[in-house]
């Protein structure tokens, strides 16, 4: 063979190699940051999305949303609903060591009892988690909890290696290269830039994941992500602003999927402070809003107008409820009757809600409120919320599972840890119903209880629900089978990259 034949042959080889490696890596750009790799210490979006790939749970969710066996092959629930017994399958961590009942007990005890656990609410009923033998783990509860199984599927219930944490300490084990049980492990992590994951060769689902490498790239600027997606520099754009959806869809090779989420955008009144401690004021504020027009203006018709204090993606969401209808004349009458015309209100917002705030202010002022908009950054927003130092604000929240228990605890129950999403909304009956519904194991009865909660909180306008927003995600055409579940989990292990 002469040299002039070797070179083209070598080049062809090199070319095919680069093409192959490019097809082996999926690049996902997101405004959400990965800041920490320990699955229990954070409940922020960017971390949740990464945890899901690193740590497998006892159960997993199928494409239909139904619970399936995960690391646990089978499970049993005792008659009284107080004891859960899981049989683990023969699975291995990314370092090749076996995943034992002891690891599961260790991980679940951490998330439910450790002080550092950022989001233990779903595991509050747990009394004890223990390893019965090598591959049997038992969870005992203080009281029955209907959503226990589905809570064991969420992001922070991932199984971590006890041996590794014992050896390197918590700091060391999760610093940059944790031993993982999920479909991926960390290849390289550059904080504030990207985290590169590579397939875990010991993952229990054989032959999966099909995509070898995953890059989770942080790009905070919406326009920058859009440009990268259209130029083919990334395969997935985690968040496409509503205004860009049409444009992305008009670009070859990439399209936007609007995927169901449990995100609920809402007006949060502070029930501890005048004037929103007054139901008449809340009613007038709700009736002043043309929520349909607002939804269309902000989301360009991409979201659904909310009808309840529950997201429509939650189980037991009651589609028959309706908040007070848009009626500015009646709203003004309400204010006039109580001599409240001219009531000054201060709406605290973060800069992302500028447009929404402008619309709310216009409609509130039209019925006789005098609205001032106060702009704060996200850090100050949360601290003001926690201290109850605001009158009214807007934001959204989402729920980790389709079961509404955690959502109610977060947003409507004031004794459950977050003072009803820091609105200080207090209703003894709602609190009682929350507990009852948690323990009730009969589906129909639970539906009734949650219906009642929605009815009460809507009547009292615990919050003014605005709209149900889907995830708006752009995928390159070569990405097949990838979605983001309502629980913020990428279905990467079942996804594929096809050659164009």
């Amino acid at each position, binding site marked *: 063979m002469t040299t002039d034949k070797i070179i083209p042959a070598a080049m062809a080889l090199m070319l095919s190699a680069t093409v192959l490696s490019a097809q082996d890596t999926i690049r996902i750009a997101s405004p959400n940051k990965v800041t920490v790799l320990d699955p229990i210490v954070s409940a922020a979006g960017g971390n949740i999305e990464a945890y899901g790939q690193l740590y497998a749970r006892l159960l997993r969710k199928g494409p239909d949303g139904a619970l399936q066996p995960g690391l646990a092959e089978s499970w049993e629930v005792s008659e009284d609903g107080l004891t859960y017994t899981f049989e683990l399958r023969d699975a291995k961590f990314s370092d090749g060591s076996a995943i034992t009942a002891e690891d599961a007990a260790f991980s679940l005890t951490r998330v439910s009892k450790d002080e550092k656990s950022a989001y233990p609410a779903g595991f509050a009923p747990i009394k004890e988690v223990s390893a019965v033998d090598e591959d049997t783990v038992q969870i005992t509860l203080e009281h029955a909890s209907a959503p226990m199984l589905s809570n064991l599927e969420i992001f922070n219930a991932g199984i971590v290696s006890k041996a590794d944490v014992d050896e390197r300490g918590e700091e060391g084990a999760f610093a940059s290269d944790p031993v993982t049980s999920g479909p991926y492990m960390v290849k390289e992590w550059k904080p504030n830039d990207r985290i590169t994951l590579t397939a875990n060769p010991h993952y229990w689902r054989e032959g999966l994941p099909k995509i070898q490498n995953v890059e989770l790239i942080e790009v905070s600027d*919406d*326009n920058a992500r*859009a440009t990268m997606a259209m130029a083919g520099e990334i395969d997935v754009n985690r968040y496409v*602003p509503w*205004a*860009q959806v*049409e*444009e992305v869809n008009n670009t070859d090779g990439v399209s936007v999927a609007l995927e169901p989420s449990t995100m609920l955008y809402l007006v949060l009144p502070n029930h501890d402070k005048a004037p929103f401690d007054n139901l008449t004021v809340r009613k007038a504020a709700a009736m002043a809003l*043309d929520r349909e*027009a607002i939804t*269309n*203006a902000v989301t*360009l018709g991409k979201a659904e107008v909310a009808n309840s204090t529950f997201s429509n993606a939650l189980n037991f969401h009651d589609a028959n409820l309706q908040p007070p209808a848009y009626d500015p004349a009646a709203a003004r009458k309400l204010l006039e009757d109580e001599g409240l015309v001219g009531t000054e209100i201060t709406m605290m917002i973060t*800069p992302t809600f*500028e*447009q929404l705030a*402008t*619309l709310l202010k*216009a409609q509130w002022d039209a019925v006789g409120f005098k609205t001032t*908009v106060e*702009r704060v950054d996200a850090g100050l927003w949360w601290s003001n919320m926690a201290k109850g130092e605001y009158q009214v604000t807007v934001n959204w929240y989402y729920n980790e599972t389709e079961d509404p228990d955690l959502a109610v605890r977060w947003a409507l129950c004031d004794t459950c840890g977050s003072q009803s999403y820091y609105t200080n909304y207090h209703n003894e009956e709602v609190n009682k119903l929350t507990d009852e519904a948690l323990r009730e194991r009969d589906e129909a009865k639970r539906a009734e209880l949650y219906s009642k909660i929605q009815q009460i909180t809507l009547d009292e306008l615990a919050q003014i629900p605005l709209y149900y927003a889907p995830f708006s995600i752009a995928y390159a055409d070569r990405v097949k089978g990838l979605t983001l579940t309502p629980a913020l989990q990428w279905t990467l292990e079942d996804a594929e990259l096809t050659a164009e």
Partner: protein
Amino acid sequence: MFVIGVALVLIWGLIAAAAPLLATHDPYAIDFAAILKAPGAEHWFGTDNVGRDTYSRVVYGARLALYIGLLGVVAPLVIGMTIGLVAGYFGGWVDTVAMRLVDITVPFPFFVLVLSIVAVLGPGIENYFIALALVGWVGYARLARAEALVLRQSEFVLAARTMGFSHGYILLRHVLPNSLSPIVVYLMTDVTLVILFGAALGFLGMGVSPPAAEWGVMIAEGQTYISTAWWISFFPGLAMVLIGVGFALIGDGLARMLRIER
């Protein structure tokens, strides 16, 4: 060129003065039925994401731009000239102290310094003015000092000294008027800069706050719509170019004329 500059600035002055007459809509009126409308007969420059009329907002924005540009240079001008003239005229330790102060501010890029001061003080146009007063005087001070250094040796100043006039009188009546021309030229470029930086702060959310019809704020509001509703950002941007060019041309023209005079 100078004439074009004067014309542009005059036109903007007129637009600002007659804004209520020229605007076709209330610049703050929200219209749910007209969200993101393209430029047309009803809305000449289109509408933004809450249905406000971009044309009317650009027209009203001229008021804010001129207000910021003209008011923002007053404090730096007064402070800078005072320090510069006194330093140059007296020399000695007064000069040394003043020039060290100048040296401290000069190494930092002007906008970075303004931005950090505003970041510390908090967003708002008042704080922008404070920041300008703190750092903007340096340019004027250097120019005024250079002029005063020459003028204090000039015959008419020496004559005035021998006739026993006080320093204050000489500074005000002789040194100040004769040092004005380079400062006026600089003033014109400074107005442009102050307007641009004011808009940049508005864009970054650290200047005039929404919903004000301020060009920087408007450009920021249109940012996510740049590919679908370009007009929201384009027209305030164009307005800013036209007002900036106006002042810059005046500055250039003045500089040329004064050089010829000398």
